């Protein structure tokens, strides 16, 4: 399972970084989202990977760490708000700058 999770995180980061380096706002936002997914998964894995264990200390002999789950929840909420904000901002930039390039570049497109 470790290998699977590590592979998933790596794939998400790779796709996220690739998209973040694109020149237009929409791919950049998608890249940011993928990257934040990878971050959340990573944070989740920081509490060690366990299946079928309750996140309660006194429940059984064996338990899964509840703190990273709480952290991930917070991070997801904050990430959601930030994504909403950046989408609105990108739309506004498209309207005001007349281009969806991240550098707000020229209106003329190179073919």
């Amino acid at each position, binding site marked *: 399972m470790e290998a699977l999770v590590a592979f998933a995180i790596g794939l998400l980061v790779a796709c996220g970084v690739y998209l*973040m380096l694109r020149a237009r*706002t929409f791919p*950049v936002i998608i890249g*940011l989202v993928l*990257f*934040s997914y990878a*971050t*959340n998964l*990573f*944070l989740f*894995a*920081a*509490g*060690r990977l366990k299946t079928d264990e309750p996140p309660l200390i006194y429940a059984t002999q064996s338990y899964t*760490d509840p*703190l*990273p789950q709480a*952290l991930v929840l*917070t*991070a997801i909420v*904050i*990430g959601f*708000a*930030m994504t909403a*904000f*950046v989408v609105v*901002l*990108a739309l*506004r*930039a498209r309207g*005001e*700058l007349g281009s969806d390039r*991240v*550098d*707000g570049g020229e209106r003329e497109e190179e073919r």
Partner: protein
Amino acid sequence: MIPSPDHLLVLPVAIPLLTGALLLIFARWPLVVRRAISGVAAVLLALIAIQLLMMSGDDAVRVYLLGDWAAPFGILLVLDRLSALMLVLTALLALFALAYAVQEADSDGHNFHALFQFQLLGLNGAFLTGDLFNLFVFFEILLLASYGLLLHGGGAERTRAGLHYVVLNLIGSSFFLIAAGLLYSVTGTLNMADLAVQMRALPAEDLPIAAAGGLLLLAVFGLKAALLPLHFWLPHAYGAAAAPVAALFAIMTKVGAYAIVRVFTLVFGVEAGPLAGLADPWLLPVALASIALGTIGVLASDDLRRMTAYLVIASVGTLLAGIGLMTEAGLSGALYYLVHTTLVTGGLFLLADLVANGRRVGARITPRERPAGAGVLSVLFLLGAMAMIGMPPLSGLIGKLLILLAALPEPAVQWVWTVILISSAMLLIGLSRAGITLFWRGPPSPQAAPSALRLLPAAALIGSSPLLVIFGGPLTDLAAATAGQVLNPDRYVEAVLGAATVRETVGGAP
């Protein structure tokens, strides 16, 4: 009974939170009412911050357990000399920025005052928290408020700068989370005092992970502080922001510097075992490079606001050069310099706006037009420039001198001296040229001269520089005491981990 003064600790977080929420609900109220609410809250905040600074003068580290959960399990606020100093600085800067904003800038949108208060909430929280994840949350609060403030007033230039600022900081936030995850995975805690304890007894195989986490944190804080390879967002963002917002942002880079001091003296401090001094090889070179780049930026700027933004980069570099020495003398010099540079750059941003309003060509450094009221403005510019360059008799000299003297016994002394002194000379050239072009050449502008009321906040912030010299003795003592406390993390750790909950103090009462 509950010891009552400790509740003061939560007020710098609670007051802006409640005020901001109130302003958000009543965003359609008359502007006068909103200004009054915001102003009263800012004054109150300044008074509380000063009271906290006086409380911290007894060298004790005060802990406020939120929800009465014992450390390291609950989240908590910690007040020591360093956080109290930062709180006072923030509150004073906010007061003057607000005094300038209420004269015009806040009428462009309904939520300026609410965002302003949330910005203060994030700043104060970041200075007070004793928990790494909480630091992340407060960073997000102050960033989200700053996104809104940066875009306040609208316009293509702000939108473009805002987009870069937001995207870069979102990436930074993800890295902060990764760093927190790395540290948690090897220590099992995010309480900074507990992290410091765990770090001392870390098994050898976990050391690389902890080191990676620590260095990632350095990169994240470096982004906030606009250190060399991570500074690209700053000139655009600060140059485009409305003047009172830019003035308030003068403290934002210092949040990064504060976080570097806090984490790398406490968690990776002298007693951190094998990871002690993790940031040392990086901090000084990067800081000196930032000074060089900021100076070149000042020379190359064709706009007064952009130039002030590059001054911020150069001054953050100087600040971190002092911190990077990681000695008591270096840190105390850096703390003095921090107070000076925050207030003066804040004043210069306000001044740049006054100049821009008094000319039809805005803040561009061209000889086409002299700003209205050039007499007063040029005197203020002269004072601000002298303070930033570090010319006698103003406070920049003392700050830079303290850092230079602190570097004397260090191996890197020739680098520190060379870079800071050459940078000062270059700043002298750049700022004189800008001053001559702006104030001495070209015909006077037909615009109306700024009223005395508008001049006041800028004059007060820049005028703080001579005051910092006059009260230099007490202030350097304060800086030295603060540096001494910061570099002895044991006190902090003991205070946090030994903090008694109210339930224990009262003795099982419900």
